[in-house]
């Protein structure tokens, strides 16, 4: 089982000459380079850093007396608060990306009031901490240079506005383009995919369509902007326009396969309650620090863990389910649960330079405990996965596992088999137990009331 990296430079931290992140003795640090001294000093002395940290918009940090990895370039070493899990924009639902965009613009406006500006606008610089978006890159600020346009404008449009517009006007699944385009969706691609009516929306006309035309027009031209300046009011107007554009974009999570699951399913209510009680009992027994709920739907079982203040990732493949889950988190002010979009049959890979800039799901684990409730039949039957491969996968991503076996004569499995040949002779409870016993100790197995389903508590044989 792979453990988290605790030494060396962070693989995603190489673009910005202002500094870089590194691990030492299990802690994370950031070297601030001498070239960034003036900007760092203004960030701290202007009170901007303190104000943003106080309002939960910027990750807190402290200056530490730790030897820098590259002393020749170093100005300071700081220790930012370490987040327990890093998620990526292609794992966020519509409202998560929208909230991240609005947080970025709010920070930009606050920075401008202090004579500073964001020099980059990567969505990867935003993370969800205790349920809210927060900027994690302390070195994203620079002194505002009078008259210059916003250097991060293109990146903001690519990382936030283009995907949000595509999700809102075309198809919510188009956020997956972020997985291919690591520096955001090119505005010319967004412009070609968006419907014609978006040209009648002034903000999208200017920030996407004219933006794309302008990029094409100037792609192979050397230009001089001497004498042409962008005043402060125009700068504020640009950011305000982006904010209005983002606020107007909406998406309603309706009409998808799983979002209405608990309302529409004929799952017996006493079985549901029994399952909830069992999950609670297993949590008490294992006492994990974190839980990954795989196939969480709208997070009914995730909340059994998060309500106990266990950090819980609530994964689902359905954008509508993740959206509903996130909106509930916001509404209830929940701080221990993070809904994320994940296709377990094709989990987030390592992408970017050397496949290491954005790490794979497996490299961000393992979890202390995983839930795989009403999931096994989707993996084994819908996705033709052999049981031993499923067991080996779970062994890689968690130390303890709560898993529900759904037998072939269950109504939900019969539904999956209704339109296809049954080639799953191996899909039996005995084979399931044999496959998982190779990797896990089967601690407990209980049949759920009113069903033929069995809920198991398992512990990895190699767990600490």
């Amino acid at each position, binding site marked *: 089982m792979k453990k988290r990296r605790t030494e060396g430079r962070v693989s995603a931290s190489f*673009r*910005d*000459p*202002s500094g870089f992140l590194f691990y030492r003795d299990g802690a994370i640090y950031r070297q601030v380079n001498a070239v960034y001294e003036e900007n760092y000093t203004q960030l701290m002395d202007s009170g901007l850093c303190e104000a943003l940290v106080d309002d939960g918009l910027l990750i807190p940090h402290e200056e530490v007396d730790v030897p820098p990895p590259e002393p020749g370039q170093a100005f300071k070493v700081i220790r930012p608060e370490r987040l327990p899990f890093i998620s990526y924009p292609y794992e966020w639902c519509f409202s998560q990306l929208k909230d991240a965009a609005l947080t970025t613009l709010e920070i930009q406006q606050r920075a401008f009031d202090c004579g500073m500006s964001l*020099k*980059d606008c990567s969505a990867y610089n935003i993370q969800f901490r205790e349920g809210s978006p927060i900027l994690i890159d302390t070195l994203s600020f*620079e002194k505002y*240079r009078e008259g*210059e*346009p*916003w*250097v*991060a*404008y*293109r*990146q903001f*449009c690519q990382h936030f506005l283009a995907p949000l517009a595509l999700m809102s006007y075309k198809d919510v699944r188009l956020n997956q383009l972020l997985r291919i385009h690591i520096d955001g969706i090119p505005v010319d691609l967004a412009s070609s995919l968006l419907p014609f009516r978006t*040209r*009648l929306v*002034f903000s999208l*006309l*200017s920030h996407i369509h*004219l*933006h794309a*035309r*302008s*990029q*094409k*027009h*100037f*792609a192979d*031209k*050397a*230009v*001089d*902007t*001497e004498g*042409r*300046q*962008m*005043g402060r*009011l*125009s*700068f*504020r*107007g*640009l950011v*305000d*326009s982006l904010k209005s554009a983002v606020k107007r974009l909406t998406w309603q999570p309706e009409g998808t396969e799983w979002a209405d699951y608990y309302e529409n399913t004929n799952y017996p209510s006493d079985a549901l309650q029994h399952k909830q009680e069992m999950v609670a009992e297993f949590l008490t027994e294992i006492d994990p620090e974190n839980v990954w709920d795989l196939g969480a739907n709208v997070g009914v079982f995730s909340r059994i863990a998060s309500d106990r203040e266990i950090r819980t990732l609530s994964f689902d493949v359905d954008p509508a389910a993740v959206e509903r889950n996130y909106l509930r988190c916001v509404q209830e002010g929940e701080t221990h649960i993070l809904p994320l979009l994940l296709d377990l049959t094709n989990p987030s890979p390592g992408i970017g330079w050397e496949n290491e800039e954005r790490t794979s799901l497996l490299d961000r684990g393992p979890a202390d405990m995983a839930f795989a409730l009403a999931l096994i039949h989707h993996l084994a039957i819908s996705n033709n996965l052999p049981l031993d491969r499923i067991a080996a996968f779970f062994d890689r991503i968690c130390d303890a596992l709560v898993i529900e076996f759904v037998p072939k004569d269950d109504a939900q499995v019969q539904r999956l088999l209704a339109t296809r040949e049954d080639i799953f002779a191996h899909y039996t409870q005995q084979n399931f137990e044999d496959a998982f016993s190779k990797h896990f100790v089967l601690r407990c197995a209980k049949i759920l009331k009113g069903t033929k389903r069995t809920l198991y508590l398992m512990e990895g044989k190699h767990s600490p």
Partner: protein
Amino acid sequence: MEHFASFIKVLFVLVSVSLLLPRPAHAYLDPGTGSYILQLLIAILFGVGFAIKLFWKEIKGFFRNRFSGKGGHEKAQD
């Protein structure tokens, strides 16, 4: 809206013709030439739009204070 789009296009061509010599941007991130120029071209529109928005908020704030009887001179909040 169509007239407005035409206006933008004309403005775009006119200003772009006047831009001839290279000048480096002071940033590690490439702002993108087209993105940079676009901001300069439409800057005045955003500036005017923002000024009108602020002015309108001031007017609304003034009347709200006037009719709510507070009579204060608080600046309209964004």
